[in-house]
Each structure stands twice: as C-alpha cells, then as structure tokens.
C-alpha cells in the first residue's frame, strides 16, 4: 500500500536488489566479521575477538540504524557466535539481545551526549554482557570457567570498539537510504 505520496522511480529488479543490499549491509557485514574472526589469521586472542566484534557491531548499528539491525538479525548473529565460539547454544543470543535492547532504550540520550558517552556506556554494558556469557556458560557446562578470560574479552571489546565503530560510522554516513526503502 502506498502510504507516502510523491513521485519515485519504478521498482525495477536492479533497484530492488540495490535496496535489499543497502538494508542488509549492517547484518551482512556483522556476519562477515564474525565469520572472519574464526578464520586462520594467526592473530593472538582471536577467540576473544568474536564476542568483541559481535558486541561492537550490534551496539553501533542498534544506535545509528535500529531499523537495519532488527532483533531477528541479532538472534542470527548470536546463534552464529555460539556455534563458532563453541559456547552452549543460546548464551550469546541472549547476551546480544540484551545489548540490543539496552542500546534501543538509551538510544536518544546517548546519541545526544556524543561519542565518548557512547563508548563509556558500551564499556559498562559489555562488562555485564561478558559476565552474563561467563556465568551462563559456567552454569550450562557445570564447571567454573576461568574468569580472567572473560575479563580479557571485556578489555579487548572496549579497546576494539573505537576503531570498529569509526568504520561503521563512516559507512553509515556514506550510505544514503540504508533501510532500502527507495525514498
């Protein structure tokens, strides 16, 4: 149904593909980065990078383009993280969904306060997220997992975030019509 009045180009196949590509860029790029963290790159601490990249991407896109980072997409990213990271199923999904929910809730005040506030809030939220993953993994495997690994994941996430989000923000500003509505 046409809810928006105005003249716009015919929805040709190429245009629809273009719109679809724009709309799926945030989710697609996140999935690509998550898969890349399991590639044999030989980077030290690569296993920790998986959670760091997932959290940073979901946080950044949920703040700037919540329509392009929907809860089902977050669910898929979390499922992929669980499978790749050899965690009990559902742990990363829950953690990323909580992160996504908090980002949506604090979206407007955070965007008003600026980049530093967004980074600090990310640090605080990801500490909770990482400890949630640690606690649930421990609970589901009936074994007290080493907590220093979780702390390292947290530090790495906070350290990686500015660089990753700078790229995300650059892409976000370059890209007109990221939801692919054809407006």
């Amino acid at each position, binding site marked *: 149904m046409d809810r928006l009045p105005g003249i716009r180009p015919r929805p040709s196949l190429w245009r629809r593909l273009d719109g679809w590509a724009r709309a799926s860029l945030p989710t697609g790029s996140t999935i690509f980065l998550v898969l890349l963290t*399991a*590639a*044999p790159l030989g980077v030290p601490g690569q296993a920790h990078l998986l959670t760091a990249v997932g959290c940073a991407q979901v946080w950044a896109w949920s703040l700037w383009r919540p329509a392009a980072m929907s*809860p089902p997409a977050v669910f898929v990213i979390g499922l992929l993280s669980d*499978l790749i990271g050899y*965690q*009990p199923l559902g742990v990363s999904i829950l953690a990323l*969904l909580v992160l996504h*929910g908090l980002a949506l809730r604090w979206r407007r005040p955070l965007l008003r306060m600026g980049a530093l506030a967004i980074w600090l809030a990310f640090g605080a939220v990801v500490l909770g997220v990482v400890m949630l993953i640690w606690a649930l993994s421990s609970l589901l495997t009936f074994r007290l997992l080493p907590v220093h690994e979780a702390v390292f994941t947290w530090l790495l996430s906070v350290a990686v975030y500015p660089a990753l989000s700078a790229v995300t923000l650059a892409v976000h500003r370059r890209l007109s019509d990221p939801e692919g509505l054809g407006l």
Partner: protein
Amino acid sequence: MSWLSIQFRLALAKLTLPVLIAASFGLMLLGKADALLAERARTALADVMAPLYGALAGPVSSIRDTVDTAERLLTLERENARLREENERLRSWQSVALALDSENARLKANLHWLPDPAPNYVTARVVSDAGGVYARAVLLAIGPNRGVTKGEIALDERGLVGRVTEVGARSARVLLITDLNSRIPVTLEGSRARALLVGTNGARPRLLYWAEGSQPVEGERVVTSAEANAFPAGLPVGVVHYASNNVPEVDPAARLDRLDLVRIFDYGLRGIAAPEAPGRQPLTRNR
C-alpha cells in the same frame, strides 16, 4: 504485512525482542536436553567453513613463512653455529639409538615379543582454531569419507596433540591436551610411575595423581600410558617442568601454538569410558 493495522504492527514490533529472548532461553534448555543437536549444527557449519578457511590458510601461512625467513636471515650466522654443535651432539645420540634399536630387536626376538600392529593414519591440515574462549581445540580439513572417527589420536611431528572429538563430512575437531576438559593417563619415564595429565587452558597442562614416592623430576620425559585403553603406551607428550608455585607441569613436545599438519592415528582403541567393573572386556569397535 501491510494489510495489518499500524497499531497491530507496532505491538508486534514491541513483542519481537521479548519473544526472541524467551527463544534464546528455550534454545539453552534444548541444547542441554539434546547435546547432539548443537554438535550436529556445529559440524554442519564447520563442514561449510573448513574448505573456505583452508583456502585462506595457504596465503596466510605463506606470509607468515616469509616473515619467519626474514627473521632467520638476520640471525643466520649464530643459528648456523648452534646447529653445527647440536648436529655433533645428535650424531653421538644417533649411534646410541641405533645400537639400542638393534639390541631391542634382538631381545624382542629372544622373548617372542608380540609386535604392536602398525597403526593406520591420515595426515590433515589444521585450518583454524576451534576452541572459543573457554576451550583449546583445532579444526582440521579432511576429505569426504576419509575414515576419521571419534577418539582417534592426533600427533604432530614431535608429539601428542590431542584427540578427535567431533567428525563431520569435511572437517574434524581435535581437542588439544591443554584443554580444560582434557585428561590423559601418562607415565613418567624415569620412575615408570603413572600420573594424570590435566589440561588448564594454559600453555602447560598439569600433572596430578602420581603415586606416592615417585615425585616427577624436572626435565623428566612424559609419555602416554595404555591405562584405560584410550592411548597406546609410549607416545611422547613432553617434559616435566616445575612452575614458580612448585606445581609440576608438562611442557608439551608438540608445537600446539603453531599446528600446521597433524597425523590422525587409528590405534583401534575404543576404551574411552572407564570400565565399570574390573576384568571387563575392552569395548569392541562399533562404527
């Protein structure tokens, strides 16, 4: 969706997140109830990704080799002198080993020793780490239907790497001896005492439960023990090293941080679970 009213769509959008959070809890319970489900999903994903990672592993390792070569060129002279010296030492050891080998063969012939069967093996490339944050494991790319099964033993050119825990159509996962869940029966070669090698997720697994009066000695060699019928006796594992807090650890002989190719040996041992009653027959092979 456009036939739905705006109010209904808004309500639906608000409901998505809670419903998905509930679904994640459901998935946790499901994964706990049916452990095979997660394993099968993981194996399927690994089967898809292993060829891609394998293709990527080639260029990455060539870049790393180039860097290594450049580093070696800088220390060529010193390295050469060290190798000459080591070669001299190894030559004398070689003559000792040859003499012992022939003596061993003679003694075995005199004793009518039943020879161990030569194990089958396949060699596979390590394509990526498959451990995650809380585990130490590697993913191997194997061709379809190469006959790798669970419980087989992985060795690199120097020593024990671990055991195969999951097998897919094109990939297999090997749990390293450093993993938190790894328990390996070992023999201390000096005293012939049994002990258990327990992984800690760190670089060096710990020694536990050695017999009283046979304290592991620094630098002593550690080999696998045939107890529990999970390993053949005598595979090299590493050497004993005492950590700063006086805990005996084992420096693995295998280069676990830089695994490239591993050999998967089929010794035909299927006694992974401890026998319930003494004197029980070893488990037969069931594939």
